[in-house]
């Protein structure tokens, strides 16, 4: 018996816990990479950011997401577009009658993919074996993207869940943070990004200098920071940051030809996203959305409010707007992006940030600081490029601000929600949308001030009991 005990003991010993653990350890599948392996080398770590831009640019995400859809949806909500389609959710955006069960556009995409990815980068990179130079650039990009997305989230939803971790047990029960807290993080992220990002544009390896403006650099962070300060009413800082970008004239300058503003890597572009879908019949999703061929997908035209906003002689009306007739009915559509059908040219990139906005930011910041001369000077740079005579209106602050708001409307239309957000931050929204016989009614709805914020998706509130709904939904 003793011998037997010895044998059994030996058997058990040989199967001790440590060796047992090895027996059930598996490597991550080679068709996929485990998070821990991803951040072990420069090559894979940089691929994560490449993947992020790829997904932003890819069919599916992009068609209904940040790159191809955000400007469109906010344009429907605002006074920029006339809608002819029959999509239930798009109709609700259009008539400002959203339900809490309407589609999760942007919400799931931003949080589930992009912010999660940024947080994974920010969690894993600092302690990784990735080289410092690459690491800095990548952390900078992740912070920049996170700030960029949080900016849009808070402008669409107000108070939002502020995610800084990838831990589902924290994120799954998270409550909303106030807009102030959100902006604090945005500012912090952008300042960090400004410090960490390469001053030059880099390639996807995060090291070599590139002529492609498809990966954010220090100036993208600066430009975004200028916008954020503007939204926060921090006029001085807004002016400083915008000036920094504008004065970097070796890299940036306004294109004189309006037809060149959205071309790939033009001098006006601060950050662009390269389209990925070669087989599609257009270069950019903007072209897909707005160019009216009478084909499916072109279900909007420019609204009469926007069309009437152009001053006579504004060459943007002729270069960035195209008139057409279908069934004897005239339509005008946004024609900033022109290439359709596609010739796999990649001549146009979706422009995320461009210099013209920086002039308008600085102009507004200066106006707010009672520096009307410089404000008008900046405004006139934009007007001149559009073939318009210099601003000749009243020089009091409010008049200039009104002129700038108008200029922003006709310069930045259908671009990334500028109009919708401008209306909200300048508190003009209730007047524009809600006044009797005004925009909202014309679109078939009845305005309520609560509707300047979108509803938090109902299922999110059901899953996370700490989330609250916006008023009015």
């Amino acid at each position, binding site marked *: 018996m003793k011998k037997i005990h010895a044998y059994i003991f030996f058997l058990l010993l040989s199967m001790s816990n440590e060796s*047992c653990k090895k027996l*059930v350890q598996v490597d991550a599948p080679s068709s996929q990479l485990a998070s821990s392996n991803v951040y072990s080398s420069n090559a894979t770590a940089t691929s994560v950011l490449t*993947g992020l831009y790829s997904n932003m640019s890819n069919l599916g995400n992009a068609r209904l997401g940040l790159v191809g859809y955000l400007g469109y949806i906010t344009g429907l909500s605002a006074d920029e577009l006339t809608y002819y389609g029959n999509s239930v959710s798009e109709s609700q955006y259009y008539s400002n009658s959203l339900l809490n069960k309407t589609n999760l556009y942007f919400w799931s995409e931003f949080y589930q993919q992009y912010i999660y990815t940024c947080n994974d980068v920010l969690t894993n990179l600092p302690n990784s074996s990735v080289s410092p130079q690459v690491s800095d650039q990548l952390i900078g990009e992740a912070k920049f993207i996170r700030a960029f997305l949080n900016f849009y989230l808070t402008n669409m939803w107000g108070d939002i869940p502020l995610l800084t971790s990838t831990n589902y047990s924290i994120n799954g029960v998270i409550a909303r943070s106030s807009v102030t807290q959100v902006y604090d993080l945005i500012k912090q992220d952008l300042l960090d990004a400004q410090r960490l990002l390469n001053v030059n544009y880099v390639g996807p390896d995060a090291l070599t200098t590139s002529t492609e403006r498809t990966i954010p650099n220090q100036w993208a962070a600066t430009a975004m920071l200028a916008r954020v300060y503007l939204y926060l009413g921090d006029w001085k800082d807004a002016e400083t940051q915008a000036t920094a970008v504008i004065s970097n004239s070796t890299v940036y300058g306004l294109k004189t030809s309006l037809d060149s503003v959205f071309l790939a890597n033009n001098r006006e572009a601060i950050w662009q996203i390269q389209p*990925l879908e070669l087989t599609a019949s257009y270069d950019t999703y903007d072209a897909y959305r707005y160019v009216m061929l009478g084909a499916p997908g072109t279900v909007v035209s420019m609204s009469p409010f926007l069309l009437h906003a152009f001053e006579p002689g504004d060459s943007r009306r002729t270069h960035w707007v195209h008139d057409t007739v279908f069934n004897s009915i005239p339509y005008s559509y946004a024609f900033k992006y022109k290439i359709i059908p596609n010739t796999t040219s990649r001549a146009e990139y979706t422009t995320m940030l461009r210099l013209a906005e920086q002039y308008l930011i600085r102009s507004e910041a200066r106006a707010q600081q009672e520096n009307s001369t410089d404000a008008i000077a900046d405004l006139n740079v934009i007007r001149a490029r559009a073939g318009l005579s210099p601003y000749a209106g009243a020089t009091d602050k409010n008049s200039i601000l009104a002129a700038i708001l108008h200029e922003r409307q006709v310069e930045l239309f259908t671009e990334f929600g500028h109009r919708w957000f401008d209306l909200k931050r300048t508190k003009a929204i209730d007047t524009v949308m809600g006044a009797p016989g005004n925009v909202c009614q014309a679109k078939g709805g009845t305005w309520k001030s609560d509707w300047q914020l979108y509803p938090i998706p109902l299922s999110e509130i059901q*899953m996370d009991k700490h989330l609250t709904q916006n008023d009015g939904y």
Partner: protein
Amino acid sequence: MFAAFPVRFGFTLKTRIRKKPVYVKPKLPLSPKLRRVKCKGMKFNAREGAFTPHIWKVMKLMAFLLFTAALQVSARSSAQTITISERHIAVGDLFNRIKQQTGYSFLWDDQLLSRSYTVSVEVKNGTIDDVLRQCLSGLPLTYRIDNAIVYILRAGKEKEDPTPVPVASPPVDIHGRVTDSLGNPLAGASVTVKGSGKMVETDANGMFVIKSADDAATLVVSYTGYATREIRAEGKNAVLVALPISTSPLDQVQVIAYGTTTKRLNTGDVTTIKADAFERQPVSNVLGAIEGKVPGMFIQQTSGLPGTAITAQIRGQSSLNNGTSPIYVVDGIPYRPQFSVGGPDGGNSLSADVGYPLDYLNMMDIERIDVLKDADATAIYGSRGANGVIMITTKKGKPGDARLEARFSSGFAQKTFPLSFLRNKEYFQMRREGYANDGITTLPIDAYDINGTWDTTRYTDWQRLQTGKTSQHLDATLSVNGGNATTQYLISGTYHRETLIFPTQAFPNQNASLHFNINTHSLNNRFKMSLTGSFTGNHNTSLQQDMSKYSTHAPDAPPVYTATGALNWANGTWSNPFQSLYNPDIISVSNLLASYQLSYELLPGLELSSNFGYNLIETYEHTSMPLSSLNPLYNPVNNAGFAYQTNHSYTITPQLNYKKRIGQSDLVVVAGASIDNQNINVAGISASDYPSDAQLQSPVGAASTYPYASVSAYKYASLFGRITYNYSDRYIVDLTANRDGSSKFGPGRQFANFGSAACTWIFTKENWWKGLPFLSFGKLRGSYGVTGNDQIGDYRYLSLYQAVYSADTYQNAIGLYPTSLSNPDFAWEVTRKGEVGLELSFLKDRINMTTSYYLSRSSHQLISALLPVLVGPGSVQVNSPALLQNAGLELVISSTNIQHKDFSWKSNFNISFNHNKLVAYPDFQDSYMSIYYTLGKPLSTRNVFHCIGVNDTTGLYQFVDRKGNRTYTPTYTSDYMISKVDGAPKYYGELENSFSYKGFQLGFSLYFVNQRTMDPAVGGNGLAGIMDNNILTSEWEHMWHHPGDKARYEKATASYGSLAYSVTGPVSISDYGIINSSYIRLKNVDLSYNLPKRWLAHLHMSSVLIYIDGQNICTFSSFLGDPEITDFNTTPLLRTFVGGIKVNL
């Protein structure tokens, strides 16, 4: 003492059997120790050193029986010749030499050879007799050969009268040997001296010695699976006992985890199905053949087409949304054929998910199936035992001369449950009613069937045209099996071919397999080896669509082919159903399954063994859609899909077995470990736009391709132990424990402990049990234990990234993006099982009854967490706090109703009840769970709308909303969940009867299920009035036609926008139209005839069996279609008949 050498089974004995035994004239007086032994039917007079003539007859008969199978070939098999040339060799050494050359064992009393005899022998190619005669000629010894054992005896006076046996002699040692009726030694048989409690076990050669026994003692010899015999020693010191195989079902061997036992002594709940119960059934998956035969196991076939889904669930659903399938263990190796190729066709093919359990295991190679259910039986599989364990044992070689078995069968199958669809007149009337009901007075341009576009005088019975073919079956098996006492082999090959019931003969399903087994053990029987393997090649050709779904085409629809033989598209007015015939889905699967078992007896009773298993399944799937099969009107592109998958796994299971007899009790200890690795690689390409259809066989040449790939690895390790303590076959306690680890869990969560305790009381063994003499056996057993479940996807605990798929790259670099969240915290799903069972046998085990009641509760349910999407990509696996219960009762009665010499009648009956319940869930009402489930109700309970039938004025289905008002438009947000329906079967079971009269045998089985189903005419098919949506005549007769009709089905509608159409959504998930779809199916009838032996003698055949077997012969149910499929769009189970012949040489 007996010195013993292992026995080798000899072929040549027959040539050695003579009319009289050979023995050398005895010269020396008999040892006083040699006594006479009397035992029933066989006498061995040791004093005479030989058999009496009477006994000799018996021996001859035995020898005859023994080698009946071998008669033909034995003449050819080489005689055991010996060549030996030795001078002055010790007799013992000589015997050793002979043993080495022949395998014969030698048996002698040590006292006989106490003097060291030396002999000289010179024999060349002589027989064993030549050698023994020569060597023993000068010695006071003689010999006798029996069953390859050479008994060395003291030479004596043959004719001398036996010395009177002393009446009360001093205690003696009784020597003996226990064999089966074929003479194979039975190792580990127990020999008890009656009344004294003294007990020994036989050694590896079946030998035993009882020291200091009363020479008048009665020995009780028993061995698992064999009838127990009593023998009076009566003054013999050499006892030979042959045990016949027990005929009692209680002694049937049962395969359990890491061992075997008998039904009599099993502490767990195991159902055993042997090959004869299924091997003649014409089904392609063995699960289809054992449906109904295992109480508590519910088997679900989802289609009558070969290669489609068939699943088994043991004792209800014990997991919320993860694997509820049992684990399959083939020859001790976990077998995981469940995988999905994830075909390029997007899963719309008939067999997109190939690899249903056992599809790729040839049924002909299966010897037996043991289904393990309760905690005691399954807990040692720990982590994997929660859903039950199905142990499959394949056929093994058996000793004897080479035996050839050939089987051939052929038959046909046809679709069952023909449905009666409307013919032209009623169909047109239905269509017109549809338009009239929608207020459409002018027939639209696309109403081709009634507006004159199609020839309304045409009539096609689409059902018959598309699924009316007879499927041809062909099966052939050839197997050879044989061997001697130490080495046995089996080789078997099978071919199966089956065509489809669709109008094409182009796509037969073919299946060929090779199975082999070699067993051997060393002469001293301490080392054993067994190698078993099978290779199956399966070529399953099917279509991407089940053509049954097109039976509803308009009866006046155009002809399928044009005059030139091309598919007729009728100017784009219809979708030609014959298109499917040109869209094949071909799946080729190669399955290699090998199991290698080694064991070595380290010490008496202590055996070290290991099982090595390897399984490789390679799958290739090819789908194609040629241009010629597509309607040219829509500018189609041809396309093809290619998918390759390899799935290889290995298992190593070392284990130590220890057996010890302590007084009247037996102790069996098993300790071991199991390592299990599985790797799956998938790669595929979707290709489209080829210049020519001829290129569809390869991805090369396609204008557009899309590759995909995935790999996954699974590892599993387990330490297990079991202690079985059996006191006098009366009280048995069984304890198991194991510690299991699975790679599906994150670090720190991989391992968990499982275990069980069971006890059994065979109360009829109690001495005081005299009360009920008709009760021959009574056993009460109970078990409780903890098992687990890890049937979730691999890598769920890891945060994974994968490459962005795009036709283009971002700045010429490939991106990665995260696809899953990391959660290292989830752990094993746990099921606690309790069971009590009562097993009774009456009238000498002729009637056997088993009743089991079980209750199991599953907790830590592995589910995908219900989280807001903002947390990140993918889902998070968590352990849900839901508590799930399954409770049920199973009853099995088997009886031999009549048992005469020529006629017998046996019956088997079983019935199972299972009740599933969601017992607890914290904050249930506020949780998402409440949308899907109901607390306190079965998981199969669905929340539905409450429908009160058809409004007799409007002809529309009417619902009741939450406030109690009638409505046609109930909403999902408020009016759903008002009513509940449960579709789980209430009970199911089977009655089997078998009769035999002389050579004839007739068996049939009736399978029954009590269940409820949604009437398909209400649920899925209720769109009467729309083109190409023909309905059944029964629906037509009960549908609303005019105001005032008290109808069961609503009015016809021809428009998808109508209210009549919109109510079909909610009604299909309502409590309306739930009908009783219970059924009794005559599942199998088998008639066979064994040709009389005397006919076969001169054909040199040992047996010939001819048979006819029918499957799914008829079904009694009020349900119109197949009540097992409950869907009119799917091919029902086919009615199959085969006739065959089985020849044994």
